[in-house]
């Protein structure tokens, strides 16, 4: 056993001529909050999709809790305790909030098909247990009062919370958050930060997150890895990343590197910087 929650070695994924993820290696310790950052098109979401089995890597190793997961289907990876959220929220819009979380509870409801047909007492018990746990999670995320609402009728922030609740319903050991703060105002982001920290201790989780909001990344992460053009260009503590010239170049373009301070703690300016970085790094991501 390696003792790492996630261990990635030389992971590579090509889409036609584009190398989306190129020889990426990294390791995440249990209980860490670990961030993956990089300009748009750096391969962060592809990296998540490789971790969760949605895409198959072309080469490289992928160990979760020391066990190889390359070649497993997404549902098998999920059943091993990996919960995730999506960059573009992917809730089941026409289901209620509670039903969404119950879907996440799927692997923990032990009802054989025949007893579901007859709705046996055992089946009812399992359903009741699952509903109780789901309501607990909704309560934890502060949206229990919306349980009966259709998911699509929730506000944006509530939908983000619901997506996390649904991922938590898996009772995961590893939680992957893809841009959880996207579209949130500074106050909501602040609450989210508190929430993620609390989650880690309350639910004994390892958290890996992709985020563009630099103030959030810098303040919440134990460690950070920076991707550009699918490759790792830096890895380290937030302070180290902040001072790394390669990272500054990646975000602001080589000309602006001297300006420094890529990681101001003002989210508003960071957002515009990320956009600027995007323009500078260029055509690559189309």
């Amino acid at each position, binding site marked *: 056993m390696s003792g790492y929650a996630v261990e990635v070695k030389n992971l590579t994924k090509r889409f036609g001529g584009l190398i989306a993820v190129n020889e990426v290696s990294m390791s995440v310790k249990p209980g860490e909050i670990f961030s993956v950052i990089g300009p748009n098109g750096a391969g*962060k979401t592809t990296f998540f999709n490789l971790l969760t089995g949605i895409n198959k890597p072309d080469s490289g190793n992928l160990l979760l809790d020391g066990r190889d997961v390359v070649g497993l289907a997404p549902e098998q990876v999920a059943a091993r305790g990996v919960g995730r959220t*999506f960059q*573009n929220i*992917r809730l089941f819009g*026409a*289901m209620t909030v509670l039903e969404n979380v119950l879907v996440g509870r799927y692997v923990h409801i032990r009802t054989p098909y025949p007893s*579901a*047909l007859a709705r046996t007492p055992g089946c009812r018990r399992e359903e009741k247990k699952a509903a109780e746990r789901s309501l607990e999670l909704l309560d934890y995320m502060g949206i229990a009062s919306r349980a009966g609402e*259709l998911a699509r009728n929730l506000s944006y922030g509530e939908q983000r919370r619901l997506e996390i609740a649904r991922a938590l319903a898996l009772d995961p050991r590893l939680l992957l958050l893809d841009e959880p703060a996207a579209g949130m105002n500074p106050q909501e982001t602040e609450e989210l930060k508190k929430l993620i920290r609390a989650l880690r201790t309350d639910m004994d989780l390892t958290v890996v997150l992709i985020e563009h909001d630099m103030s959030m990344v810098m303040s919440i992460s134990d460690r950070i890895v920076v991707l550009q053009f699918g490759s790792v260009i830096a890895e380290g503590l937030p302070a180290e990343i902040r001072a790394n010239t390669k990272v500054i170049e990646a975000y602001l373009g080589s000309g602006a590197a001297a300006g420094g301070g890529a990681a101001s703690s003002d989210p508003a300016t960071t957002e515009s910087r990320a956009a600027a970085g995007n323009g500078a790094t260029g055509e690559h991501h189309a």
Partner: protein
Amino acid sequence: MTGSLKKMKTETALIAVCAADLVAFAALKVSPGFFAGIIGILALVMTGYLPVKLQAKLGSLAVLTLVFTLGFASKASGDIFFIGLIGILVVLIRTDRAPVWTKVLIGAAILLASIPFAGFKDTFLFELAIQIGIFAAMAMGLNVVVGMAGLLDMGYTAFFAIGAYTWGIFGSPQAHSFMAGHFPLNGNLMFLFMGLAVLATALTGIIIGLPALRLRGDYLAIVTLGLGEVIRVLANNMDHPVNITNGPQGITPVSRPDIGWFRSALSAIGVPLDARTDYQLFFYFLVLLVIGIVIVVNINLGKSKFGRAWVAIREDEIAARSMGIPMIKTKLYAFATGAAFSGAMGVIFAAQRTFVSPETFTMLQSTTILGMVVLGGMGSIEGAILGAASLTILNIDLLKGFSEYLNELKQGGTVIFGYHLSSLPSQLDPAKYERLVFGLVIIFMMIFRPTGLLPERRRKAEEAEDDDDIPEITETGKGGQS
């Protein structure tokens, strides 16, 4: 104030129409029963659509049930009263606020008294009710596959055929031609064979589903379309070298269960049965019973983790799988369940008709059942039943009835606007346009009410979601990567 006044008025209007209907009925000797039927349907539509008090609504439904039932005793053709009774059931189901006991009471009165009464007056109506029942059960089975799980199955009759032949072959002398034993088997074994057919069709569903369910949407539709044809062609050609299905001639006679106990039980409660109606009534009740089971199973599944998994996969496969839902297995459950319902109905169909032949199991049949699900509203149980009822009535009753009526007019030498109906070419016979009308109905439904007559809550929400995809766009427009 004005609102309640208006309400008073609508209620008075409703009561007036109901009363007019009763009066029309009392004066049956002078006014044809058909007239009472028309007023009754009008009252029913008013009951369904006007915002009246619950008591008025239920009261009018009860009165109309009585009127339509009495209608069968009149000289008029029973069709209109039959349709009226089905209409009452629909309104009843859609009246959410009604207490359960009233629903059960009126529903039971219609299903257990009115329709059998109609059947005794006119055995064709029994036949119609049984056909509706068989198709309703199948539509609900297909509803699990298409409506809940979102898998487009175009060859659903294949499983119906497998069920029908399972009993057809062993419940008739046919099995003699390829194996030794005492055939036909005792008719009472039909019940056992229903169970066997459920297993056989579920298994077939799994075997075919394993490769087919890896495909999506259109591809799955094409594969199942092919499967439907394969089974029909097999049934058509497996009469040599070994005669298993008796080919295009079909198999007859298929045994029916012994119903001595049923006859004596009914005569004990004062309902004497004759040879014309005994099996009809028996199969009617059997189909009702099976429908009851199918409904309960449907509801149970909808509320279980499997029902949620189907909807989740239908809505977003990637998200569903990321929540640990095994895709192929979940789809297989839906496919096999739908197949099993169809298989069980196949056995009943074979026994009720005492005849099985390949031409029943055409592609057209598959599309008709699919049409029932779509027409009624995908994913909705009451929708599947209503879809089955309307299309069956349209196919085997209304258009044929209209044809006959036209024929009578032709033979009677009727002249309309100076045109002699007798010179109407036979190509214009309405019965020949059954499929045209079916097609038009589906086209207009898709244009004006794509979610079906009685849409399921979730489908409705999905439809609305597709209309306003603004939040979707702003989101994807953001950090678009890889």
